[in-house]
């Protein structure tokens, strides 16, 4: 069907890819496609590590007593689990992997604006991660104060573990900032001639919004951590009340980053979902401009709501009001996206492959997380559930049900482009079912636990919660098992799967005009856009109108 923007490069131009060049993935390579895959594989390995830590946590919680690990080790397990999942999996996978791999292809340029800086940013990830994992093996053990690392608690737990944690976050944060500089410059300066902001693919909009957040908020976390390390090592008392300091200042600085961090983790996935749905629904995206601008609205609002994490930290009542209302307002741009996605699916010719299943799973799970988010945004409700399992349930619906489902969808969708091979659909669907069932079994009951008052971050609990916790733990085991078919499927198909054509899904964005995998030099000449990114099944209706169909009004189409 769809006529492509540029002639797909003839297959004979790309001689048979031979084995042996896998070595480039272990080198300082400046090709954005190599770097994207480096990010993806590295962060996925950390996902497995973080998952193993979570399984340790759930084994401990399967029974009310402390029986599997010591209390001290339990604290380290959940602290490093969260840190790994956020800083070494979702952030680098969402922005680093897909941002790097897709942006130049979608924008029609040959590489990121600063390829060498890009490689430097990637190569900060493995040392940062190894440093963090290494802290398990020192005498005092790893950081154990939760990923929030609130002082004064973080000042009295093991000092070396805490300091390694700080160092590692500083390294990973710097990497993230360098990445954001690259994304912003590439999006603003390197779009192919003819691609305006208002007809670039929605993933680019999402990365634009996420990169602004990285650039503005990550440095503030760095500032907080610098002060925290002085308290830890040099005997100052910035955040230590016994020396005249104020721990709440740390909380403000921490959440000034860590609330936007949620959007740094979810916006890139919003972007990939907006790419995946129209391709597999064979329909133009509904509400292109609404989705594009709502990303910006989310990133602006995301910067002014951080104190909703501090309703129980002595925040004055009038300030709590402001943060409560501002937080609830974010549901509006988010709702705009969700309804636009649903409207895109409505009446489409759905192709229910693994990518689409995960994308639809993403919408449903994320909506649950979004709704419980509005609940905890409300001050009285939050005071009731603060630091309970309700919050754990909420954040996992957003970060796992949202970000991770979205990342899986993206992996399935672009696997043929990245590897040049098709991935096995049957195993993809088995993976989806296991993930969906395990995920809901693990996290849905936690809402109830939280409402009943079970506190988070404690290794033992009241026996009345035992049955439900056992159910949660069984869910987590299913979730752990669910990664096995995926990893085997991905590895086997990457090596010997069916060869992928240039455009297996009949997509209209620029990456599908290139061979799978794309040539090292993406576009010999800047590509010329012949259609908008989402003009599915509408080429006849577009007629002579210059604008892409996603921006036409109904009257334009009818008058044709």
């Amino acid at each position, binding site marked *: 069907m769809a006529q492509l923007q540029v002639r797909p*490069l003839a297959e004979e*131009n*790309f*001689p048979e*890819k031979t084995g042996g*060049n*896998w070595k480039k993935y272990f080198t300082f390579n*400046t*090709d*954005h*496609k*190599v770097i994207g895959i480096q990010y993806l594989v590295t962060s996925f390995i950390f996902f497995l590590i973080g998952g193993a830590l979570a399984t340790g946590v759930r084994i401990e919680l399967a029974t009310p007593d402390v029986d599997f690990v010591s209390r001290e080790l339990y604290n380290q397990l959940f602290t490093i689990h969260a840190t790994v999942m956020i800083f070494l999996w979702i952030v680098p996978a969402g922005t680093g992997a897909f941002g790097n791999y897709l942006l130049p292809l979608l924008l029609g*340029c*040959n*590489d990121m*604006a*600063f*390829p*060498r*800086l890009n*490689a430097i940013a990637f190569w900060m990830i493995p040392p940062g991660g190894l440093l963090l994992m290494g802290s398990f093996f020192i005498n005092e053990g790893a950081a154990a104060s939760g990923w929030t690392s609130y002082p004064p608690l973080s000042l009295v737990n093991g000092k070396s573990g805490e300091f390694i944690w700080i160092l590692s976050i500083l390294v990973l944060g710097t990497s993230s*900032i360098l990445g*954001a*500089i*690259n994304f*912003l*410059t590439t999006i603003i*300066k*390197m779009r192919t001639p003819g691609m305006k902001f208002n007809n670039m693919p929605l993933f680019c909009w999402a990365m634009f919004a996420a990169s602004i957040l990285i*650039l*503005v*908020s*990550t*440095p*503030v976390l*760095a*500032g*907080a951590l*610098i*002060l925290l390390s*002085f308290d830890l090592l*040099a*005997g*100052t*008392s*910035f955040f230590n009340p016994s*020396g*005249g*300091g*104020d721990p709440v*200042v740390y909380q403000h*600085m921490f959440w*000034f980053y860590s609330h936007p961090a949620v959007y740094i983790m979810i916006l890139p996935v919003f972007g990939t979902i907006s790419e995946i749905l129209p391709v597999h629904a064979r329909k133009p995206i509904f509400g292109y401009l609404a989705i594009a601008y709502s990303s910006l609205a989310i990133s602006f609002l995301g910067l002014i709501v951080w104190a909703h994490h501090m309703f129980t930290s002595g925040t004055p009542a009038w300030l709590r009001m402001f943060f409560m209302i501002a937080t609830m307002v974010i549901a509006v741009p988010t709702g705009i996206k969700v309804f636009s996605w649903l409207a895109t699916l409505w009446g489409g010719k759905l192709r229910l492959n693994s990518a689409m299943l995960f994308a639809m799973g993403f919408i449903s799970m994320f909506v649950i997380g979004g709704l419980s988010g509005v609940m905890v945004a409300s001050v009285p409700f939050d005071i009731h559930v603060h630091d309970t399992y309700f919050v754990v349930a909420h954040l996992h619906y957003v970060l796992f049900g949202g970000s991770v489902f979205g990342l899986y969808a993206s992996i399935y969708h672009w696997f043929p482009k990245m*590897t040049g091979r098709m991935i096995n659909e049957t195993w993809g669907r088995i993976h989806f079912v296991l993930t969906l069932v395990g995920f809901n079994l693990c996290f849905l009951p936690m809402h109830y636990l939280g409402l009943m008052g079970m506190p988070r971050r404690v290794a033992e609990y009241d026996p009345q919660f035992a049955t439900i916790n056992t159910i949660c733990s069984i869910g987590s085991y299913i979730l752990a098992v669910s990664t096995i078919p995926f990893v085997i499927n991905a590895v086997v198909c990457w090596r010997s799967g069916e060869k992928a054509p240039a455009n297996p899904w009949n997509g209209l964005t620029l990456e599908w005009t290139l*061979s799978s*995998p794309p*040539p*090292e*030099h993406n576009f*010999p000449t800047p590509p010329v856009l012949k259609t908008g990114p989402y003009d599915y099944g509408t080429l006849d209706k577009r007629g002579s109108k210059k604008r892409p169909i996603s921006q036409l009004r109904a009257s334009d189409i009818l008058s044709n």
Partner: protein
Amino acid sequence: MQGSTVNSEQVIAVSQDGHGGHLEDHPDHRIFGLFMFFVAESFIFLGLFAAYLTFRAVTPAWPPEGTPELELLLPGVNSIILISSSFVIHKAEEAIKENDVKGVQLWFAITAAMGALFLVGQGYEYAHLEFGLTTNLFASTFYVLTGFHGLHVTFGLLLIGAVLWRSRKEGHYSADSKFGIEAAELYWHFVDVIWIILFILLYLL
């Protein structure tokens, strides 16, 4: 994994005379990127300034009782040195527009000397202050903020040194190829602006 229409030697050749590695066939966006970097840097400082102001607001007396008075003379002179160095380094950019590398070297050397003088002055002030890093909350913020800024001045000096080193090679810098000079200059201005805010916050407010 990728095939290519461009033969690989050609690719390598292109990447070696480009500055970034992989196929530099686009205009130079480095100054733009540098400004993005300044945004990030500003937000570290903004975070620290906000923390300082909050500490100040929630502490009953500021600076806490018993904090020795800050001398204004030395840091005042120091500020004047640093601020005037911004005008000096700007001369270098004007010089390079005329392809005058000798002029660049001269102005950069003077700027570096002024920056070094600033650091010496700050070291002298540290040595003669009657409070230490852990005396109280004001003292801690004072040392961390000025120290963090001093680190930036030091880094600026390294940048200037790097430009001076590279400028020895004939033709390395010219009116058409002056990114290093511009970057060092912009960074120096940035560090200057931060100092002005810092000076007002710590000494004058």
